[in-house]
């Protein structure tokens, strides 16, 4: 199937996303039962019908997200964008590997870990079952290296470093695959990816500047950004400047940086996603047929998934309405 068909379908799929008004309405519901009833007429209704516990509800909305991603991949078929799409979606594989390793190294049983993972075999290059065999970090490293899906350095001393290496590998591959996207759409996609990496790197720098992260670890966590501030420059910033410097040099992300500086990291995470979404929403692409819309759809999917999850958990914890709104990307 052609790339044009994929983009058109992405436009179609985007129309099925829950609107901002509905998300806000859901955020003000008082019970999980009410939420399920309100979502009954949507794609989520069927999955949520049988869910009883919070975890089952979370799994239900994850399933809807995965079904949507699978549909998109199916439509992508053998088109030019499929390689990039698969690489982009491998963030769920990285997430799975990280969860599996944390649990296994914390002596959790394989069954416990399996229950936690997101089933994304279609886009995975690493067999997660193999990783479940790992008893310690060395074994885990061996298994990941053997899969040849990730290039890891010889020495990795902690899980945190391994996580950083996996993300570095992920972004390097996504940038590399982005170069195979049609030339006209490449620039926008690289800008979006660059922004994503920039925000992640800035978080690492700020955490180091406010002494919440060891500088040597922070240096190793920095991700190479071909479409933003380079790792070399950020290393120099890390060595020489305090947190105020970042506020002056990156005024566009001031709200994000301020939240990080005031140790409100969870809210900074929401701000990061809002910045990305705002960036994607504000792009005025003159053509209707642009691959950027596929990526924008993925971003919107992720935002909807996270918003619904945040609402579910907020209701479960009885978080006040004003705080609930601060937890939403689509607020």
């Amino acid at each position, binding site marked *: 199937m052609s790339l044009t068909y994929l983009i058109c379908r992405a436009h179609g799929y985007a129309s099925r996303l829950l609107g901002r008004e509905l998300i806000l309405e859901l955020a003000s519901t008082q019970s999980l039962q009410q939420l399920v009833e309100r979502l009954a007429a949507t794609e989520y209704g069927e999955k949520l019908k049988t869910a009883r516990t919070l975890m089952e509800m979370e799994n239900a909305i994850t399933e809807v997200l995965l079904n949507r991603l699978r549909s998109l991949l199916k439509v992508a078929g053998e088109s030019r964008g499929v390689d990039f799409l698969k690489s982009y979606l491998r963030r769920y594989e990285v997430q799975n590997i990280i*969860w599996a390793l944390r649990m296994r190294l914390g002596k959790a049983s394989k069954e416990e870990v399996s229950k936690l993972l997101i089933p994304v075999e279609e886009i995975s290059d690493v067999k997660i079952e193999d990783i479940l065999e790992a008893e310690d970090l060395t074994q885990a490293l061996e298994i990941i290296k053997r899969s040849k899906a990730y290039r890891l350095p010889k020495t990795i001393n902690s*899980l945190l470093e391994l996580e950083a290496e996996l993300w570095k590998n992920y972004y390097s591959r996504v940038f590399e695959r982005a170069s195979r996207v049609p030339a006209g759409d490449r620039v926008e996609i690289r800008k979006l990816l660059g922004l994503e990496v920039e925000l992640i790197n800035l978080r690492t720098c700020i955490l180091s500047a406010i002494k919440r992260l060891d500088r040597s670890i922070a240096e190793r966590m920095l991700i190479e950004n071909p479409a933003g501030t380079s790792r070399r420059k950020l290393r120099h910033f890390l060595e020489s400047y305090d947190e105020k410097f970042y506020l002056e040099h990156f005024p566009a992300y001031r709200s994000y940086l301020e939240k990080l500086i005031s140790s409100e990291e*969870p809210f900074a995470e929401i701000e990061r996603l809002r910045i990305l979404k705002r960036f994607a929403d504000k792009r005025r692409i003159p053509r209707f047929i642009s691959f950027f819309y596929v990526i924008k759809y993925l971003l919107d999917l992720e935002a909807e998934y996270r918003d619904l999850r945040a609402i579910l*958990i907020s209701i479960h*914890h009885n978080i006040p309405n004003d705080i609930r709104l601060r937890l939403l990307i689509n607020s």
Partner: protein
Amino acid sequence: MSLGIRYTRGFLLDLKRRLFFVKDAHELLEMKRDQLVREIKDAISRFRELRRKVELEMESLYRDLAVIHAIYGSKELISSSRTLSDRMEVEILPRSIMGVDVPEVRIKHIPDVKDKYPPHISKIAEKASAIISDLLRLAEVESLIERIAEDLKNTNVRVNALEKVVIPTYENLIKQIGEIIDQSLLEEFMRIKLVKRALMRRRGQA
């Protein structure tokens, strides 16, 4: 209370000795009760202070945890919570306060959480780690109060029993036996006097 009462002078002396011992015990138990009351008062004020502090800390921790849970999801939270393989070690030793065994919690090892968790979780992990020792202190004081209160209740029952039952019973008994012995002595005296008078009368006739 079966004492095998005998109305003899020997038994009376024995009873008086016992009463002296019981009064001593009563005094000691009263002292113990007063000391336990002081200990429990101290412990309760410490408990209130600590509990207020822990409640505030827990409230703030729970609020933060709820927000992190909502933003990152259950899976991230569950997997992060398993990251630390190091376990906390505590030793519970018995300590005696006025003969009451109370537990004393000694923290042998608290795992270092710094740089062990992903950055977004580390702050809450550090917060939780700091609360754990306060929680243990709170449990220790709570257990101390429970045990002292239990012992205080028993001591009170004993003191009251001695004060209201045992000592009055002994005193009554001593009084009763003393009266009976006095009466029998008087009877004996009268009897001897009558016998003596009869003997004298008989000698006079002879």
